[in-house]
């Protein structure tokens, strides 16, 4: 397909004159970097919480990008990243069969036990 729009990047400014390679060379889009899901553990937090996603070429870059994008305001002290394609999820169309059956099983909640008064924090 013929490319009608020349995309210039700031750092490439003026390079066309000097014969440097055009970033849009070959007229096709460069492959996008893969997507990664980011999990951050805050200082008080016990578990890593999903905070968002980002693009990166590899795991190392994903961790650094996560540091730069998601921990700028002291949000965390530990970062996990996992490539999004390795996340397997339930299908929303199956929600009814997966989750609704738990609706009428009140006996699964531990609310039928009498606890001694001396037990606190439960």
């Amino acid at each position: 397909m013929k490319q009608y729009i020349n995309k210039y990047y700031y750092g490439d400014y003026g390079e066309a004159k000097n014969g440097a390679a055009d970033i849009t060379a070959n007229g096709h889009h460069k492959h996008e970097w893969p997507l990664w899901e980011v999990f951050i553990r805050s200082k008080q937090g016990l578990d890593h919480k999903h905070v968002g996603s980002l693009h990166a070429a590899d795991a190392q870059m994903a961790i650094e990008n996560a540091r730069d994008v998601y921990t700028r305001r002291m949000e965390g002290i530990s970062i996990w990243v996992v490539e999004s394609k390795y996340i397997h999820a339930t299908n929303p169309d199956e929600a009814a069969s997966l989750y609704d059956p738990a609706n009428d099983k009140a006996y699964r909640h531990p609310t039928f036990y009498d606890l001694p008064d001396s037990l606190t924090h439960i």
Partner: protein
Amino acid sequence: MQASTNLISTTDFLLHLADNALIMGHRNSEWCGHGPVLEQDIAISNIALDCIGQARNFYQYAARLMGEGHTEDSLAYLRDERAFRNCLICELPNGDWAQTVLRLYFFSTYQYFLFQQLQHNSDAELAGIAAKSLKEVTYHLRWSSEWVIRLGDGTEESRQRILQALDALWPYTGELYTPVAYESVGEADMASIQTAWLDHVKAVLEEATLSMPDMGWMQQGGKTGIHTEHLGYILAEMQFLQRAYPGAEW
């Protein structure tokens, strides 16, 4: 007399450190909104802010020693080109991404080894600023060295670009570790910084499958106020507002 001479070289040295960080930060900040991808745009902008933060600390301390109404703003915005003491490599144009990350790598490696020594300086305030900055610089070094490796050991085009950057920047690297008189204030062993710098660069270039250039002739002059034509343009843009509207606040 002795004391005032010492004071002059201390402020000279502080201004040198501050100017390095300010001009480097300004150059990196030019990428803000123009980074190759969103995440790297944020990364380089973060680094720019780190540099400007370091500059502020050094300027504030210098202003206090200098007295006579100097402030961090007057030192950054109201000194002319010949009074700036930054290394030439800081003021060079960004070029492409390869030149920007390679320049940051060369500069961060120098800062890293310098600040490691400065953090033990007999001047507690200088030592404190160096120790605080060292944490930031350690990350800049890690981030930029990985980019150098990625580009050198990447595609044919990325390799071509980092090779061009290496050619363009190399003659400006010698000035980093070649001391001028006022740098004695740092109490740093510059010869060991040179050795450490060269070793580090050699290892990273090797990992990037690039070979170390010959030492060759090195540019110098920035540390004593003799600059390239590029600094004037930076200052024109950076200082315009304060000079046109003195004391402007918003």
